[in-house]
C-alpha cells in the first residue's frame, strides 16, 4: 500500500493542475474574499436624525463627529429620508434619537438610541457599529461620574440589507467547506475514474492487490493534502484577517478530518457510478459543488429560502460542517454543542462508504 501512496503523491505533484486546485485556489479565494470585504475605517459618512434636539442628543452627536471616524453627511428631518440616504450609498450609518430623548434619560435614567447601518458591506457595518457603541459608552461613563443615579442608554441596532452580517469571518467556514468538498470529492473521483479510463484500474484489479488497498492508496494522499490546505486557510484567516478563534483547535481539526473523510467517501462513491473523468467532474461540480455553494448558507441565507430548498439543504453534508466550524471558531462551543451535527456527518460517511463497497463489488461480478 505504501508504494501506492508514493505513486499517487508523485502523480499529484507532477500535475500542475492538481496542485493549483489543492493550494492555489484556496489561497486566492480566501485572500479575495478577505480583502474585498475589508475597508478603511475613516471618515465614515453619518446621518443624524435627531427628533429631540436636547443637550444630551446634541452632545452625543458632537462626540461622534469629534471622534475622527465620522463626518456629518446631513441632518435628517423626517423618517422618509432614511431610505433615500442609504440608497444614495454614501451614508453608512444613521443615528436616530427618539422624540423625548433627554427628557426620558433624566426622568427614567434610561433612554433609547437607534443605530441603523448599511450592512451590504458587512465589515464596515460591524466596525461602524462598534465604534458608535464605544463612543456612547464613553459618554455615559463621563456623565455617570458626576451624577449619583447611573444613567442608561439602550442601543438598538438595525442592520440593513445583510442582517446576518456576513463578513470574512462568515466566509471562512464556507470557503474551508467548499475547498475540502472540491478537493476531496472532485479530485478523488477524477483520479479513480482516470485509472478506469486509462485501463490501469483493470490491471490493478487483476493483480493480487486488494480493492480496499487501491482505495486507501487513493484516499490517503488526498486526506493529507486537503488537511494541509485547510490549515493554510485557517492560518491566513487567523493571521491576515485576524479572525477570532474562540474554540478548541484540536476539536476543529478532528471535525475537519471527519469532513474530509466524508467528502472522500463521497468521491469514491461518485467514481463507482461514473465511467469517465468528465462524468465524474460533472457529477462533482453540478450535483455537489453548486448546491454546496448555493444551499449551504455560504452566500445566501438558507432561512429565507422556500421550504423545499431548506429540506434539500439538510441533505447536503457541507451545511452541517459549516455549522460546526462556525460554532467552534466564532462561538467557541465545545463538543457537547456540536455532537448532533457531528453525528449526522458520521452517519453520512458510513452511508457513502457502504454504498461504495457495495457498488465496487457489483462491478467486479
Amino acid at each position: 500500500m505504501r508504494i501506492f501512496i508514493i505513486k499517487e503523491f508523485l502523480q499529484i505533484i507532477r500535475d500542475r493542475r492538481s496542485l493549483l486546485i489543492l493550494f492555489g485556489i484556496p489561497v486566492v479565494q480566501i485572500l479575495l474574499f478577505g480583502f474585498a470585504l475589508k475597508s478603511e475605517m475613516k471618515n465614515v459618512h453619518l446621518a443624524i436624525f435627531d427628533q429631540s434636539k436636547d443637550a444630551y442628543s446634541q452632545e452625543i452627536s458632537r462626540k461622534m463627529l469629534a471622534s475622527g471616524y465620522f463626518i456629518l453627511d446631513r441632518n435628517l428631518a423626517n423618517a422618509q429620508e432614511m431610505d433615500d440616504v442609504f440608497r444614495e450609498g454614501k451614508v453608512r450609518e444613521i443615528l436616530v434619537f427618539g422624540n423625548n430623548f433627554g427628557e426620558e434619560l433624566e426622568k427614567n435614567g434610561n433612554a433609547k438610541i437607534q443605530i441603523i447601518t448599511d450592512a451590504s458591506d458587512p465589515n464596515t457595518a460591524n466596525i461602524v457599529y462598534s465604534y458608535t457603541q464605544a463612543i456612547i459608552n464613553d459618554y455615559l461613563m463621563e456623565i455617570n461620574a458626576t451624577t449619583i443615579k447611573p444613567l442608561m442608554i439602550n442601543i438598538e441596532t438595525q442592520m440593513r440589507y445583510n442582517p446576518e452580517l456576513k463578513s470574512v469571518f462568515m466566509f471562512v467556514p464556507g470557503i474551508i467547506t467548499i475547498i475540502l468538498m472540491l478537493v476531496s470529492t472532485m479530485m478523488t473521483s477524477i483520479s479513480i475514474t482516470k485509472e478506469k479510463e486509462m485501463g490501469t484500474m483493470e490491471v490493478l484489479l487483476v493483480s493480487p492487490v486488494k480493492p480496499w488497498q487501491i482505495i486507501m492508496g487513493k484516499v490517503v494522499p488526498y486526506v493529507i493534502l486537503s488537511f494541509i490546505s485547510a490549515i493554510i486557510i485557517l492560518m491566513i484567516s487567523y493571521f491576515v484577517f485576524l479572525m477570532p478563534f474562540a474554540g478548541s483547535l484540536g476539536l476543529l481539526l478532528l471535525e475537519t478530518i471527519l469532513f474530509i473523510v466524508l467528502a472522500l467517501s463521497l468521491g469514491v462513491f461518485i467514481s463507482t457510478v461514473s465511467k469517465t473523468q468528465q462524468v465524474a467532474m460533472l457529477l462533482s461540480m453540478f450535483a455537489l459543488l453548486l448546491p454546496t455553494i448555493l444551499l449551504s448558507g455560504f452566500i445566501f441565507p438558507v432561512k429565507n429560502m422556500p421550504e423545499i430548498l431548506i429540506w434539500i439543504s439538510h441533505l447536503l453534508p457541507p451545511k452541517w460542517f459549516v455549522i460546526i466550524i462556525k460554532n467552534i471558531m466564532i462561538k467557541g462551543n465545545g463538543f457537547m454543542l456540536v455532537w448532533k451535527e457531528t453525528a449526522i456527518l458520521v452517519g453520512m460517511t458510513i452511508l457513502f462508504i457502504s454504498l461504495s463497497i457495495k457498488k465496487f463489488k457489483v462491478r467486479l461480478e
Partner: protein
Amino acid sequence: MKQVIVKNLVKKFGAFVANDHLSFEVEQGEIFGFLGANGAGKTTTIRILCGLSAPTSGEVKVATYDIYTQREQIKKHIGYMSQKFSLYNDLSISENIRLYGGIYGLSRKAIKEKIEEYIEKLQLKEYQTLKVFDLPLGVKQKLAFLVAIIHNPPIVFLDEPTGGVDPITRRQFWEMLYEEANNGKTIFVTTHYMDEAEYCHRVSIMVDGKIAALDTPEALKQKYKADSIEKVFIKLARG
C-alpha cells in the same frame, strides 16, 4: 502441463448469453490466439480467466488453480496487459517498473535488477528518466508487456496488445512473444489483426459466444480451403 482448462463455460448477462458452453485447453509454452469479431464474447472470456468477472457456470482452471475457490492464487500467477497498455503516463519508466514490482511483492533488489534488465533489453538508456507519456507507442507497448510479466508468471493474458501500432513494431513485438514462449511462458492473446493470427501456435475463432473453430492455423486453412486465416474467419463469421 495445461495452463488453462475450460469446460462448458457459460456466462450470461440477463437473457444474453455472452459465452455459450466454451471448452478448450491451453498447453504450457503455447501462443494461443483468441479471435472473434467485436461482441463475439472474447473480452468476456478473458475477463473471466483473469478473475475480473465470475462465470455463470462451468469449470475453469488457470495456472492449475480453480477460478471459484483459488482466485487469490490465480492473481499471483498470471500477467495481464490490457488494450490500453496499462502503464501510468505521468510516471517515468523506472517508477512504473517500481510500482508494479512492488504490487507483486518483488524485493527492492529484484526491482532494481528488473529496471536495469528492461532498460537494457529495450535500449531505453536515453529515455530512462522520461515520462511514459513521451515514449513512442511501440516502446510503450513493449514495456507494458515486460511489466506485465515482471513477477515471472507461467501464463500471461494479452487483450489486443497491438492496437494502433505500425506493422514493423508489431513484428518486433511478436518476436518478443516468441522468445518468452520458447522460455516456457504460455501466452494467451486476443487480436483482430488476422495476419497476427498466423503467428499463433493454435487459434480459436469465436462467433456469437461459441467457439466455431479451434486448431493450428495450417489445419484451419486446409479444413476451410482458404489461403489465409482472414478468409477462414470471414467464412465462419458469415456462417
